[in-house]
């Protein structure tokens, strides 16, 4: 393990981070959208979304990544590796986020809604001013937890040849013939990233509990 190897590892960590970050950002918003659509109970669309959530939660990330990357050209869509990886991670995390948002919706107190409507707020204003801020706080621990799950699942993108933090260890080992140190170093970097997220989750939980009281 020399400086060169560490540089490669950091590059891999950066790849893991930016791909995951894009997937997380899209996933949180789309999850909210899907939760809203499901709460609206539009016939047919609701069944479709239930099917999507169920399928996306049951499909392993590795399988999903391979599926998207290999079968997109069959439909005449040209995806490069990174787009396919982001798409797969997003599809996966959106389904989980939608469930987190939905449970925040379901557990929202009816009294507040009635009070807001009695005060003359429109549905839109009520949602923006009253519901969303509270939902954000109460579902943040779940969302951060899902983020750390996404990072833990992100090595799946290595299978389509993206050199992420896991795969880069193979590259280094191919040169040094010594796989143990790079894998341990990669483990250390992952622990740093996920450790930060776990810390954030603890902080978010404390905040959410204060709201509940």
């Amino acid at each position, binding site marked *: 393990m020399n400086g060169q190897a560490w540089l490669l590892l950091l590059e891999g960590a950066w790849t893991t981070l930016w791909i995951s970050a894009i997937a997380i950002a899209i996933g949180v918003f789309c999850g909210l959208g899907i939760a809203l659509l499901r709460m609206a109970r539009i016939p047919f669309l609701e069944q479709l979304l239930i099917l999507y959530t169920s399928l996306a939660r049951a*499909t392993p990330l590795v399988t999903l990544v*391979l599926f998207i990357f*290999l*079968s997109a050209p069959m439909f005449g869509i040209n995806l490069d590796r990174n787009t396919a990886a982001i798409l797969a991670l997003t599809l996966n995390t959106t389904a989980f986020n939608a469930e987190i948002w939905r449970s925040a919706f379901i557990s929202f107190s009816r009294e507040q809604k009635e009070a807001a409507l009695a005060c003359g707020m429109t549905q839109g204003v009520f949602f923006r001013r009253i519901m969303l801020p509270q939902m954000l706080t109460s579902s943040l621990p779940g969302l951060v937890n899902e983020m750390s799950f996404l990072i833990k699942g*992100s*090595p799946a993108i290595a299978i389509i040849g993206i050199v992420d933090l*896991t795969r880069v260890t193979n590259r280094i080992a191919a040169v040094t013939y*010594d*796989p143990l140190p790079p894998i341990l170093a990669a483990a250390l970097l*992952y622990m740093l990233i996920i450790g930060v997220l776990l810390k954030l989750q603890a902080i978010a939980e404390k905040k959410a509990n204060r709201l509940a009281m």
Partner: protein
Amino acid sequence: MTEWSIIWDAREAFFNGFFNTLALFALSIVCAFVLGCAMLYSLEERTPLAIVVRWLVNGMRMLPFLILAYLLYYGLPRLGLRLDAWTAGLLALIVYHGAYFTEILRGSRLVLPAGYVEAAKAHGFTPFRLFMRIILPQLVIKTRPLLGNQLIIALKDTAFLTIITVQELTAAANSVQATYFIPTEAFVVVIVLYWLISIGLELALKWAARFGAKRGFEHG
């Protein structure tokens, strides 16, 4: 429809992958559960072992599953222990999910009313029997939804093992699509198979919930 008939002709590959996945999954979760309970038992007393277990569990929570599999498959030969891919994968699944089972049960153990334990002690239970008869059954019934989630995560983690060349379901689809170049159909079949397993798991969990309700641990 020729693609589907090719899939049908290649059914043996899918069956083999499916059974390999199921075998890995079933064997690993049973061992992981036992390991998880054993680690939980070691946490009951403040011993050096308990500190090691705490470190292990916290470490596993911060590690992606694939990195652990890499460590066992690529890293261990350095230390003179060469495992084949299947064994390394199984071992990784057991250790990783055992740690998660411990964490889930520990969370519930912290909020278990002390009265049960004190009453059992007063009746002369030895620590081991106290753990097996009084503590563990309650924890398992109470944490059923979380344990169920973990089972589904374990099922999905078996797919990672295709990267360290274990011949499981995803690997089967990959080899079929590489031979006949029909990726869409091959992966649709595999995704449906994974879906079926997880639906089966969910049904089993619902059935377990009824058992919990009958014993008065859950309401609804």
